[in-house]
């Protein structure tokens, strides 16, 4: 990964020996049951062999369309779901092997922000109770100390201390997402998995939450795994990008280069599908056809081959592995025809 650090490089170690998060060949399958006896008749490969690393203080944008497995991946990293196979290392420590105090410490260091600021906050708890809850669960500080922390956290996310006494229903979507951010920060994590954190918000409110997340990263050296279907949002926040299609990463690399010179035909189609936002330069031509196939019936070869304008018979044989692009080792794509299709639009 290029350490072409943004001007506001995060405090703390810029390049440590072991990255903050290492994911190695992660799989998550769900059995599909059928018939009167509920026997296993197949499986859905939600995540099918995903590997990546994320350094402290950086943002990895994870993009893809519905059903591509990006949310399952986030939940599996957080251990909200058990992986079927593969390794997740946090600070070099294998999450699956962590027990007792180590596991508790690791859990504190990884927190999550959810898409829906309406359903992710308990309506019967006050804002103060919601933000304080992780501190209580982990037995951090005295009650007075906890309340002081809650006040500081609310201030950090731009909410007045008085909001502690109020209930989530009294707040707008943007304010609720700030409450969710304050709760995620309570345990001073080093990694935040943010699953579509601004997708439910209006654009003017969305910009406030994005500004907050960028500022927190700068001030606290947070790493984000930023999961989103909205490419213009990801482009704004991500240092690195991974594009998923049907459970696999099909392209990854530094965000700037990936947006400028997408290599995989799916990434190209995805970028072309985004409306131009310039009425004088509208898109021309016919968009990519078809829909993502069901993850229950994944094609044998490249999962994108059935929709790919460049697919050949060889593409349908076996799933292609990620390979570095010529002259750019940090930028990888999983396509056996990279060299043939290079420069053919995109």
């Amino acid at each position: 990964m290029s350490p072409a650090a943004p001007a506001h490089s995060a405090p703390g170690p810029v390049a440590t020996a072991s990255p903050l998060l290492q994911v190695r060949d992660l799989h998550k399958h769900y059995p599909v049951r059928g018939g009167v006896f509920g026997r296993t008749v197949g499986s859905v490969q939600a995540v099918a062999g995903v590997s990546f690393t994320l350094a402290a203080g950086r943002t990895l944008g994870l993009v893809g369309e519905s059903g591509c497995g990006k949310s399952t991946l986030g939940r599996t990293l957080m251990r909200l779901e058990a992986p079927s196979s593969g390794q997740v290392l946090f600070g070099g420590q294998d999450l699956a092997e962590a027990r007792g105090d180590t596991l508790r410490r690791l859990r504190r260091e990884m927190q999550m922000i959810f898409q829906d600021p309406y359903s992710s906050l308990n309506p019967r708890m006050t804002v103060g109770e919601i933000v304080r809850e992780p501190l209580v669960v982990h037995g951090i500080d005295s009650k007075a100390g906890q309340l002081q922390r809650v006040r500081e956290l609310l201030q950090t996310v731009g909410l007045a201390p008085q909001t502690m006494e109020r209930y989530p229903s009294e707040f707008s979507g943007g304010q609720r997402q700030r409450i969710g951010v304050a709760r995620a920060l309570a345990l001073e994590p080093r990694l935040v998995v943010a699953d579509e954190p601004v997708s439910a918000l209006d654009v003017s409110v969305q910009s406030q939450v994005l500004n907050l997340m960028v500022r927190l990263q700068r001030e606290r050296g947070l790493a984000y795994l930023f999961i989103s279907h909205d490419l213009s949002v990801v482009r704004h926040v991500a240092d690195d990008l991974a594009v998923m299609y049907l459970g696999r990463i099909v392209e990854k690399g530094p965000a700037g280069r990936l947006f400028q010179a997408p290599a995989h035909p799916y990434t190209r189609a995805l970028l072309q599908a985004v409306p131009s936002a310039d009425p004088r330069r509208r898109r021309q031509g016919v968009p990519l056809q078809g829909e993502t196939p069901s993850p229950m019936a994944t094609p044998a070869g490249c999962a994108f081959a059935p929709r790919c304008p460049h697919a050949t018979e060889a593409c349908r044989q076996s799933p292609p592995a990620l390979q570095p692009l010529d002259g750019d080792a940090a930028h990888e794509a999983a396509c056996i025809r990279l060299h043939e299709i290079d420069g053919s639009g995109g």
Partner: protein
Amino acid sequence: MALLEIDRLQIGFDTEAGLLRAVDGVSLTLQAGQTLGLVGESGCGKSVTAASVLRLVPSPPGRLLGGEIRFDGRDILRLPAAALQQLRGREVAMIFQDPMTSLNPVFTIERQLGEVLALRFGLDRRAARARALEMLRTVGIAEPEARLVAYPHELSGGMKQRVMIAMALLCEPRLLIADEPSTALDVTVQAQILHLMRELQRRHGTALLFITHDMGVVAEMCDQVAVMYAGRVVERRAVAELFESPRHPYTRGLLASMPRHAAGPKAELPTIEGTVPSLLAPPPGCRFAERCAHRAGLDAAARQRCEHEDPALVADGEAWVACHFPLPGQAAPGVSHVAPAGKGRA
């Protein structure tokens, strides 16, 4: 004569807290074969305005407080029920964000599409089936024969959306109202649907009333745009001019807060501070005044005016703007009419 004219429309909702004026004096015109975008954030009244064109606002609690809607010269709000029924699905069709608003869960796709065709064109079952198959192919549904005998729940979200659109297109309406038709869809599917709607317009001269919060979609699809805020239209004009030189401070704020217009990755995004005023008791002056960044540069007398005097939507050059002190327009080269020289702005 315009195909659709909305004139000083006022719609209220009776709530426990009093009368909520969701649409408060909205005027719009749409010419045959053109696309008008109705944009704004949650709660601005855009969907209620659109639904009232087909008299789909539930009453109670909704209530017409004033104004007129004329379609092809006919006074829709006072049309007898039978005549209204004739209009719906024949001359005017509507598609929604949630396809299940239009699809009946207990009937097959064939039956639902067939009903439309029997009603609209008097086709018999065989002719209707052939026409329905053709349309399902046109909207990009694979294996249309199999889909005809399916029930809505057997289809994916994207497919249901396409069936609803197929149903609307089968009517060959003169006006198609689309309320956030692509919001819930993946970007590649959204691109297909937008493409399809443009094709329909090109072939049949259908006028489109497009309701969205996505400024990218507006740039892509619309000829004219009306920006709504708190139940009012604050700016109305041609799309390219609106994007190039927004005249209302709210429009400018909305465009500026889009991540793709940011100065660079992770750069601070402009935001619109504060919240939309309550429509139970809207302020006497400009409804945007409290949040208006532009107001800070005005003198005390001018600020008083913003707070106490309700700005009307008036023509200023090619733009219609509801602001006492609109932002200066840039005289675009090649514009035939004479733009008013920079009107006094404090």
